[in-house]
């Protein structure tokens, strides 16, 4: 089975899906970071402001991971197994980063 190269309809579909994920991630994390920062500046550091900023940062770091996960689903749905495998590898590499982060965390 020959796999087509450039396919405009499929590219546009991917572009739309990934754009939505990125936009949502950035907006949600910016709101959490902004609120948390505003609270910490006006009321001083508290559990709420620190919590909001932590949630914002975690959402920010999770956005590219979510974007890769959506790519895996998209390429799987399109039965484009070459790109399905490539995006799975990227997702595994990001997961390895999370494992490394946890290892460093317990060491301290």
């Amino acid at each position, binding site marked *: 089975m020959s796999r087509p190269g450039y396919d405009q309809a499929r590219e546009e579909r991917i572009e739309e899906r990934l754009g939505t994920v990125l936009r949502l991630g*950035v907006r949600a994390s910016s709101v959490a970071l902004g609120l948390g920062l505003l609270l910490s*500046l006006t009321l001083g550091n508290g559990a709420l402001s620190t919590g909001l900023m932590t949630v914002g940062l975690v959402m920010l*770091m999770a956005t590219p991971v979510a974007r890769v996960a959506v790519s895996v689903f998209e390429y799987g749905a399109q039965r484009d197994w070459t790109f399905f495998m490539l995006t799975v590898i990227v997702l595994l590499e990001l997961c390895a980063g999370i494992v490394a982060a946890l290892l460093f965390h317990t060491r301290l």
Partner: protein
Amino acid sequence: MPVVTPSLVFIILAAGTVAGGLGATLGIGGGIFLVPFLALGMGMPIGAAAAISLTTVIGTSSSVSAGRSGSRLINYRLGMVLEVATAAGSLLGGITAQYMNQHALEQIFAMVTAAVGITTLSRLNKRNIVVGDTLDCGALGGRFEDGESGGVVSYRVKRVPLALCASFIAGNVSSLLGIGGGVIKVPVLNAWCGVPLRAAAATSAFMIGVTAAAGSIIYYGNGQLIPALAAAAVLGVQAGSTVGLRVGARASARSLKLLLALVLFAVSALMFYRSLQ
């Protein structure tokens, strides 16, 4: 680790805005300006500066790529292929950064910025050549509407192994120094791999989110990321890059490149000086 005070938060918010604006104007991320400012200006350990900068890289990558939806400038297929290499590079860089000597990191930063400055100067008068519009793009090529050429342009990707190598190195440098790594990928993709400059920059901006996420997760786990300062830097860079993208679209490419090279040499000299102390 620096103590978080309201004035420090405001300084970093302002620095993020300037770095984001300058970075977006020049078509690179703000990290290359933010890291030296935090390390040299504010006296932070380079790890803490890199951790803050990496979170701003994720923010810039996500918002710029989301904003490009519909322009077809981002080559997703090429991006997904190169991400395999860049994520591996940044993973390795993030782990080695935890064990590396502070002065060695500063010297690497000085060398990388000087090398990028020289590359920029050497390409000062080179314009990218765009191929015709009926070309078979191959498995990884792309097509987009190019305003300067007044029509649809197509391109093929050449020397994929070289692009993979450059992406691996870019990922590695990204995690070690807290920059996006586009300064390495974009010139290589453009000069040797046949990708038009605007497509190379857009695809690189799309990829650096994954690169920076892999690196910043490790810094975060190691407790080197200060939430309030990262929040201020991310919001500042977002605001600054929105303005910078508009300015950059209007300014002449030649003067931008010249300005970029001068700033890079200055940063390089300062970093080298600091590594000797």
